[in-house]
């Protein structure tokens, strides 16, 4: 089957991100397709490159990046939400005259059409929200 995910929880809701990442890994291991994960609202903060997770634990961001690297999953942060939350690629950083891009490697910014496209082609659409502050 083909899966599409929508992630709304901020990265501080580590349990929600772990649950979503675990599901993605299980789905891919089982041979399902999972071409794209779409992050919206506070979920886009997981793509903020300047956030430094505490201690030695890998952060949700690093887990998502590993998933993208190993399985080619496209990680799209909703552009509207992302800029409100301070997540800028180099184009947006230039447009809003900020000194540097803050979008973490492995993520791209994109419009809501990419969410629509993902769920329209999917057999399963799943939302991950809640948690935090």
């Amino acid at each position: 089957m083909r899966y599409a995910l929508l992630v709304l929880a901020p990265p501080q809701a580590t349990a929600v991100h772990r649950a979503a990442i675990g599901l993605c890994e299980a789905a891919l291991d089982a041979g399902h397709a999972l071409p794209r994960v779409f992050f919206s609202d506070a979920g886009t903060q997981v793509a903020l490159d300047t956030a430094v997770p505490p201690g030695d634990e890998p952060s949700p961001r690093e887990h998502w990046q590993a998933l993208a690297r190993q399985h080619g999953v496209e990680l799209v942060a909703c552009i509207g939400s992302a800029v409100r939350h301070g997540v800028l690629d180099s184009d947006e950083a230039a447009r809003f005259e900020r000194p540097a891009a803050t979008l973490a490697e492995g993520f791209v910014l994109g419009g809501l059409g990419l969410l629509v496209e993902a769920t329209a082609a999917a057999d399963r659409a799943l939302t991950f929200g809640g948690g935090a502050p």
Partner: protein
Amino acid sequence: MKSTLLVMNRAPYAGTLARAGLDAALAYAAFDQPTSVLFAGPAVLQLAPAQEPAAIGRKSLRRLIDSMPLYDLEAVYADAGALARYGLAAADLPAFVTVLDPAAQRELQDRHEHLLSF
């Protein structure tokens, strides 16, 4: 193409999730997907009349909801129990909104291939 029900759960101005959900609903409609919207729990407050959130730095979500028919989005529903809890009457809602009891909400859900929650 899949029929999609977007379930709204949040009060309008606590954060930005309510707005994100409405933007998503309008996007589904704009891309000509069969789209329905259910306002459940605190999200029925997004339907309240006369919202004037300029002094808290926001734009009226009710005004955005009122524009839904312009996107051919009129399959819009509200949770009867939540309306009662918050003291909202059917007359307060946009005319195109249908009020549903819990059983009818479940039937609505079961008529759609996908659900997204906000």
